[in-house]
């Protein structure tokens, strides 16, 4: 995937390219950022790409014929090509810009779902889904009367594929699941899940919010129908994400929002929709952000997604081993070989908010709460957990700091 690979992975070199890594949270207390599953930090090249657009090329796209408009349009579409290639898509026109993963999934539910799903049609989800892959389908169920069923999650945080096999007998129309749980860290066997879905006559949507940033993902290799992901979790800016879908699906789907750019012709009482992907991109989009998204993909390609995944595997294995040694700490999710760089846990006698607050005192940023996965927390009877997550810029030294700080939490609370 990488054109000019860095060769050996250098944490120091990578960290030097992220300005925020020089930040001290308080004087003398450097930032230890372990919250990349919420949002990633940005390398200088992404910040520069967006500044460059604003300083030199700022213009609206697909409209003017002046030089700046031509440049801005080319930059915006060039980024689309890069992002499409990054996920193994054959055509850039099958990649729709959205605001984020949430909007991508909503787009499918609102357009494909409303047109092609009828009352009592079955959509299979799982218990480990983020709210963004639950609520849009619940809203559609309310509107159209579709049926929702859920792949159970086992005690050790894996999808129960026996349950899945039984659900497939009920002739589902769509299977919509995450590739990488943002709480358990579980990496699901999407290729197998997709194959089974297709054999049962269903389409498959993959929530790639956590997987696309952290491992090589190819829509062609996985043989899936929809892929939703966000730029901000993969070194890019907020406010931009993508939906990739197979061409014939995008062509058959009605438009999403109405307005400029999504039309070919507009009359007082009607319109004709534009070609894909523009049909789904109404109004002036996040142009600088799309360009930043492209720069983020360039950066990840330069490092190489295999190298990113290998680094995180090493980090996760180390973190799991160290965290499990802390008395009273209970880690959620499967064994290290079935998970990516996410470790959520509970600590006996201390609420996650208090854990996160005391870690913050040591400059360590983690997430505390239900991580937008309330049903999954209900599944494990936990109101909330503390989550540390890792990316290419994290080091084992930072994990040591996390562990040390967790012992401090235990001391403060006398547990």
């Amino acid at each position: 995937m990488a054109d000019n690979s860095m060769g050996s992975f250098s944490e120091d070199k990578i960290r030097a390219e992220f300005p925020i890594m020089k930040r001290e949270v308080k004087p003398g207390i450097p930032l230890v950022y372990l919250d990349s599953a919420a949002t990633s930090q940005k390398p200088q090249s992404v910040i520069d790409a967006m500044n460059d657009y604003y300083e030199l090329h700022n213009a609206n796209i697909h409209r003017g014929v002046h030089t700046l408009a031509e440049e801005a349009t080319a930059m915006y579409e060039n980024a689309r090509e890069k992002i499409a290639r990054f996920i193994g898509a054959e055509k850039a026109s099958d990649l729709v810009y959205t605001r984020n993963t949430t909007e991508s999934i909503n787009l499918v539910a609102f357009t494909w779902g409303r047109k092609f799903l009828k009352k009592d049609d079955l959509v299979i989800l799982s218990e480990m889904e983020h709210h963004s892959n639950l609520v849009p389908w619940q809203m559609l169920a309310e509107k159209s009367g579709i049926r929702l069923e859920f792949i159970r999650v086992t005690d050790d945080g894996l999808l129960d594929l026996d349950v899945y096999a039984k659900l497939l007998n009920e002739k589902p129309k769509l299977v919509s699941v995450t590739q990488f749980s943002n709480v358990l860290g579980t990496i699901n066997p999407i290729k197998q899940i997709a194959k089974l879905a297709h054999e049962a006559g269903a389409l498959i949507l993959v929530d790639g919010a956590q997987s696309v940033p952290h491992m090589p993902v190819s829509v062609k290799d996985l043989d899936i129908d929809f892929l939703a992901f966000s730029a901000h979790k993969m070194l890019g800016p907020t406010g931009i994400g993508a939906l990739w879908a197979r061409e014939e699906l995008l062509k058959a789907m009605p438009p999403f929002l109405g307005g400029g750019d999504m039309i070919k012709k507009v009359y007082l009482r009607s319109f004709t929709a534009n070609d894909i992907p523009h049909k789904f991109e109404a109004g002036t989009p996040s142009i600088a952000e799309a360009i930043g998204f492209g720069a983020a993909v360039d950066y990840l390609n330069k490092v190489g997604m295999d190298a990113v995944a290998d680094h995180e595997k090493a980090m996760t294995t180390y973190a799991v081993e160290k965290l499990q040694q802390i008395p009273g700490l209970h880690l959620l999710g499967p064994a290290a070989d079935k998970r990516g760089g996410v470790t959520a846990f509970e600590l006996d006698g201390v609420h996650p908010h208090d854990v996160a607050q005391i870690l913050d005192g040591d400059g360590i940023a983690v997430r505390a709460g239900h991580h937008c996965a309330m049903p999954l927390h209900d599944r494990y009877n936990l109101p909330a957990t503390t989550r540390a997550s890792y990316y290419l810029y994290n080091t084992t030294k930072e994990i040591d700091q996390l562990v040390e700080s967790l012992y401090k939490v235990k001391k403060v609370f006398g547990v």
Partner: protein
Amino acid sequence: MDDLYREVIIERYKNPAYRGTLEPADISFEDENPLCGDHIRVDLRVDESGIIKEAAFSGHGCAISQASADLLLESIIGKSIEEIKHMGKEDVLDLLGIELGPVRLKCALLPLKVLKAGAYGLGEASDDLVE
């Protein structure tokens, strides 16, 4: 931020004096903070003249919200329901003796929000109650 975890807060969190439920209670109300799932229920027993005689809280949450509930209930024994209606954010912060950012402030104020909604006999607790 470690100064948030003053001894009194840890002590109240671990050994609350007012934890429990009152059944029957004259006033009972519960609510949660949807951001973190903290959940608090407050039960009160009040005499004929509206003076609070007994109070208890239940539910789950972080040290700040639990300690806040315990200190708050201690402070209202012997007060009237009318006085409760006039309590505000500052009363809770005085009890806790700490300063809080906007996120943790919600934890600290949840018990007061629940208490005031109960005092007013409202259907639901609103943030306006603790402004």
